[in-house]
């Protein structure tokens, strides 16, 4: 096969794999946003913290990968529940700006705690797939990338089934449409919000555990939240399918910009997409028209 075509296929596969992590991040943020109307700027830091917890369990405590991953996800979920129950709940009903500020404050505190606890050095941990590669025709893929893709698909499918078919999931949908009406129907909205935080924090942990082996366990992992925001905006803010589509597209754009555009375009592409979409096309790909009540 032509080398050019192979390269394009290769880049597409890598882009989809990275993009599925961005999609997971975007999915977590949009779930929190829809259910609680808080844009969670601390999401990247929850992700980063889970990566460090995972490292601690695998490398320091010597626990095998799967139990360690499970424990990390549980810890992250408890952290998410705690943060909403004891921090975010105190400002319910205040303007949106207060929510933004409080999540930024939480982000700072988590980042500070992690760098106090672990120090500034970056690390890595082994996974069952580290170093293995698979050949699909002429394309070479690391197994990690395939696992990332599979895990993202599984999480998304589970989330879909959960939101569609369980009582709790339907309750989340109801409260994301109208909190007061949901409350009057007997849904305990506050507790539900805390649960959504726990759920999204667990998703952050999955994303963090997947991202860390290909990126390195480092404080700068939180930057992925910016990619997630770009994905959200591109897909259409507030739309769950849009978040997934946007994430994949951002991953692809980054990979292709890194090869076919001048130096530095890879780092800037997500931000450029975010600004461009918001200025020229604020609805995004699958977004609903958003307006403001008077």
């Amino acid at each position, binding site marked *: 096969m032509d080398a050019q075509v192979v390269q394009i296929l290769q880049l597409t596969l890598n882009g989809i794999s990275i993009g599925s992590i961005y999609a997971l991040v975007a999915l977590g943020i949009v779930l929190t946003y829809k259910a609680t*109307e808080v*844009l969670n700027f601390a999401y990247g830091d929850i992700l980063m913290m889970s990566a460090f917890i995972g490292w601690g369990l695998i490398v320091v405590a010597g626990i095998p990968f799967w139990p360690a991953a499970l424990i990390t996800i549980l810890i992250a979920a408890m952290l998410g529940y705690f943060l909403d129950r004891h*921090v975010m709940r*105190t*400002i*319910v*009903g*205040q*303007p*949106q*700006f*207060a929510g*933004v*500020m*409080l999540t*930024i*404050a*939480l*982000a*700072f*505190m*988590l*980042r*500070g*705690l*992690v*760098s*106090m*606890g672990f*120090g*500034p050095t970056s690390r890595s941990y082994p996974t069952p797939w580290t170093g293995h590669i698979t050949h699909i025709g002429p394309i070479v893929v690391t197994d990690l990338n395939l696992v990332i893709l599979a895990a993202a698909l599984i999480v998304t499918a589970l989330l879909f089934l959960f939101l569609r078919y369980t009582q709790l999931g339907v309750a989340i949908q109801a409260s994301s*449409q*109208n909190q007061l009406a949901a409350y009057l129907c007997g849904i305990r909205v506050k507790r539900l919000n805390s649960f959504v935080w726990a759920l999204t924090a667990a998703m952050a942990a999955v994303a963090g555990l997947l991202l860390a082996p290909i990126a390195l366990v480092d404080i700068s992992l939180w930057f992925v939240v*910016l990619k997630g*925001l*770009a994905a959200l*905006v591109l897909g259409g*803010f*507030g739309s769950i399918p849009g978040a997934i589509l946007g994430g994949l597209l951002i991953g692809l754009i980054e990979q292709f910009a890194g090869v076919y555009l001048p*130096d*530095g375009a890879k*780092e*800037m592409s*997500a*931000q*450029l997409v*975010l*600004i461009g979409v*918001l*200025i020229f096309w*604020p609805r995004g790909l699958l977004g609903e028209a*958003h*307006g*403001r*009540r*008077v």
Partner: protein
Amino acid sequence: MRFAYDTSYSDAQQLLRYRSQWICYGALAIALIVAPWLLPAYYVGELSYLFIVSIASLALMVLTGFTGQVSLGHAAFMAIGAYTHTLLLDQGIGFIPSILGAATLTGFVGFIIGLPAIRVSGLYLAMVTLAYAMLTEQIIGRWKDVTGGFTGIPVSPPSLFGYDLSSLKGFYFLCLVILVAVLLGLINLMRGRTGRAFIGVRDSEAAAATLGIWVGGYKVLAFVISAFVTGIAGALLAHHLQFLTPDGFSVMLSMELVLMVVIGGLGSLRGAIFGAILIGMLPTLISKIKPLLPTSISSQFGLETFVFGLILALFVMFEPNGLNGRWLKLKILFENFPLYRRNTFRRGKTYMHSERYR
């Protein structure tokens, strides 16, 4: 208790209306003028730094506190101001034209960044400005021919009318004079037609539009004014740092500026200065406290970030009016001393206005 009893329009227009205010602000002015001779050199430098961040914080307050537009990217405006000023000085242009040129260019960039504000607001604007700040940092880092890239460029010392202002005292007074000028300008702007329009846009865009206020225009104008003043602060910061690298203008600096206005208390210029003083001094305070802590904590460098977050969280949760709100409470407590009513400032129950239809 004091009641306003005006006998002419000029009474109502005065900035300092009572003898007690004249005394307090006069004492503050004298203290600031004699401070460089009384304080150790280190603190004189710190004070000039506080003046610079106060200017930037005032600029952000105009945008966020008065016009209600969140900007998470003000460090980029500071960077543009700082680099332009440095490059213009290197071309042999005098200090005043150079700083004005830097501020004008920053204002123009503010105009461009402000244009999206007509279409997007709230969270979306926060994301646009955040992305813009990260882009600016990248561009400065990669545009090596002009900005020196990540290695940085040195800043030539400031001099005005042939006097060298690079000494600590000279620079202190330079910053002080510019701060006072900016403060007076903004106070007058904010109590005039423009400022009232800004507040109208902040409180309700629809209501402002029905009153004939050109909402889009005033939003962009707020960006331009804010960027212009931030550009001045950036130019001064260049002299304070003496060596410019893109790292000095990272997202962290933007966040610190936002912290200043939120902690100071949104919607008051006094709050902007309080916030700038608190946040500007925090690193010094932490380094003073560090020796008292156990070494396992003090040797780690995340402590500062953690304390920033903690203070911000406490203010958002327990004192949303910020330092300025606390100041007003204390003032009323002392003015009506035995008769203070706690409920004067009680927070009413508020319900969030959803940003969504449906």
